[in-house]
């Protein structure tokens, strides 16, 4: 048992993934062929024996609501446990009001009523594995008021742009939370994951609302660090991390899974990542079908060639078609002799009447959902 209420937040800091996000919130993005991004925080919580979980959804809730259902697929106890999906009443006046803190404030009574003494907050759009009960234990041992989970990177000049970073002192005390503007290679990327007492969390929300009604949780905690009233500390995360914070990072995170070592550092057999089954049959490779260096989900029909790609469920690749360095989402069709390179092909798209759809490693292209090319 882990004495924490799990909170999974939507993208509050106005990050946006062009294309994909028109159709679903970041948490519902497809990842590694058969997963969705939110499967990671949810499985992390479920594996940590957190069985009361709130998921905050800001926009286009349909796909996420369908995916989460009653939490059954995520091994959340159906009687003792509870998965709540909370839709926020967005302000239409100005999007700056639609912060994560505003959503918590709206549901503060529900949070107060939970019997857990702690909260663990994780974003729906970051991909990593982490034992939260170990994190909670470390937090309690340290005596800190707030613990922030971060990941050390050396490629921050052109990765994790606009993600939050932790400015730490030698004792891992958090001095401030800043944005990564790509000015330095080494950064402590903040995984927007917090551990604190529930009472402190409620207190912070109230104070934040009084101070500014457009403050996000990161701004609130940054303010708390600078005030000197709180002991805020960082804990280093080990293993793979991806932030689907823009289109390119989404594409690259998927492609990362083609490296078996990277994939194994994220998918540990003792730390299962749950998702929803669609009961697709295995994938059928016909006479003309070829594949190499690819992750291919079930239910596909492969008559063409697949190289260095991630293929979602139920994709059809016709004879003569070539798919290279691409992420093809579920139920799409790559028609006869079509040449698709460096693309993210969204669900149900059909590439039928064009010969070539070709992007570059720096600028992968995007094919819209349900679209026919």
């Amino acid at each position, binding site marked *: 048992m882990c004495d924490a209420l799990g909170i999974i937040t939507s993208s509050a800091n106005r990050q946006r993934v062009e294309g994909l996000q028109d159709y679903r919130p970041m948490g519902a993005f497809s990842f*590694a*062929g*058969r997963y969705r991004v939110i499967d990671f925080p949810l499985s992390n919580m479920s594996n940590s024996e957190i069985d009361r979980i709130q998921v905050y959804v800001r926009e286009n809730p349909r796909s996420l609501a369908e995916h989460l259902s009653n939490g*059954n*697929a995520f091994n959340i106890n159906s009687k003792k446990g509870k998965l709540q999906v909370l839709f926020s009443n967005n302000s239409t006046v100005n999007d700056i009001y639609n912060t994560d803190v505003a959503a918590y404030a709206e549901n503060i009574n529900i949070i107060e009523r939970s019997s857990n003494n702690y909260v663990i907050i994780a974003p729906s759009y970051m991909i990593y594995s982490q034992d939260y009960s170990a994190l909670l234990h470390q937090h309690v041992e340290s005596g800190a008021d707030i613990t922030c989970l971060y990941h050390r990177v050396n490629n921050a000049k052109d990765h994790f742009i606009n993600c939050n970073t932790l400015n730490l002192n030698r004792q891992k005390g958090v001095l401030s939370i800043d944005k990564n503007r790509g000015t330095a290679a080494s950064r402590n990327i903040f995984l927007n994951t917090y551990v604190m007492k529930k009472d402190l969390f409620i207190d912070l929300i109230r104070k934040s609302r009084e101070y500014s009604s457009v403050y996000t949780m990161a701004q609130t905690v940054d303010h708390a660090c600078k005030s000197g009233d709180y002991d805020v500390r960082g804990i280093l995360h080990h293993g793979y991390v991806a932030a689907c914070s823009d289109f390119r990072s989404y594409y690259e995170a998927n492609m990362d*899974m083609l490296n*078996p070592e990277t*994939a194994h550092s994220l*998918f540990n057999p003792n730390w*299962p*990542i*749950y*998702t929803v*089954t669609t*009961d*697709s*049959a*295995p*994938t*059928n*490779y*016909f*006479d003309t*079908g*070829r*594949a*190499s*260096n*690819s*992750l*291919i*989900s*079930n*239910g596909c*029909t492969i008559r063409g060639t*697949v190289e260095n790609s*991630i*293929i979602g469920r139920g994709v059809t690749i016709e004879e003569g078609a070539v798919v290279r360095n691409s992420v093809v989402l579920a139920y799409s069709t790559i028609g006869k002799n079509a040449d698709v390179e460096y693309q993210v092909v969204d669900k149900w798209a059909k590439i039928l009447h064009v010969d070539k759809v070709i992007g570059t490693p720096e600028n992968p292209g995007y094919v819209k959902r349900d679209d026919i090319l």
Partner: protein
Amino acid sequence: MSQNSMLAMILAGGRGSRLKALTNKVAKPAVSFGGKYRIIDFPLSNCANSGIDVVGVLTQYESVLLNSYVAAGRRWGLDTANSGVYVLPPREKADADLDVYRGTADAISQNIDFIDNYDPEYLLILSGDHIYKMDYSKMLDFHKEHKADATIAVIPVPMKEASRFGIMNTDEEGKIEEFEEKPAEPKSNLASMGIYIFTWKTLRRLLTADVKNPNSSHDFGKDIIPTMLNSGRTLWAYKFTGYWKDVGTIDSLWEANMDLLNENSGLNLSDNSWKIYTQDMGGLPQYIGPDAHIRRAYITQGCVIEGDVTNSVIFTGAKVEPGAKVVDSVLMPGSVVGEGASVVRALVADNVEIGAGAKVGKAGSENIELVADNVAGKEET
């Protein structure tokens, strides 16, 4: 169809000893099939897709795995308020000693109390060892239309093979006149598929009498059906024309798997209107390595293919290491073909490891080689 007007009972007690080592530890219905399924997923999914709510599964031989497997009715969607999958092993009763199921009919007789709970009008009897997709609600319509006491599903088989089956001799319209078990000189090629619909009241009376008959072997084919024919009951043959296969031997189990690779075999598991449901095993999609070569293959989630796979079916989590060759074979869940090893015309059982450089099976062999134990690797020469 009103709720529970037809209840299904799956006979899943048999060992299936012709499957040799595959059924040493599990009953035949629990044997893996088609990459990610078990044989019993087929009748269970057919029931769910046909709108049958309550399914009893009669287990006996090595039933531990099968019991826990089928008890999770959620996997097949048999989990609404009035539905469920119920595991029915033999049990001790107040008025009878604990006894094994003495035959297919006895398995039903011993569970008359269970069936009565649901008060069904019709009872569907299925076996747990066939691969096919069938809408039982259409068969029930046929049964009702002909006001039959029993309807038996039949499939035309090649005349020269007919003597291997239970054969129904019917009149022109399909009314059964005679039943012959494995006739030396068959008069028809309509083989029983082991799928029966009975009007429950009629069957209940017959079973009650059969239990007391010391000369009966308590078998549907040998006792109940002949008794019904002799006493002038109305029995109809329901002709099925889709794919159906008894996977009772290693060769036939291999063949049925191979049929998944053939678009014209009639066995298509990708039809979304009639899905076959199974346990969700989790895990990454199949990974096809940089130097892998794949030609005509049926591969599922969790597999890691780094060698060559030709004309083969690869089950959940199986691995083909670099330089290994798998041809005309079936690799069951968790099996591993080590570096440079070769597997030809073989069926490699669950979790079996073929060591690096080892060779199993032979091209053009008469029978498929069953590999049920680990095979040691060979030193490089």
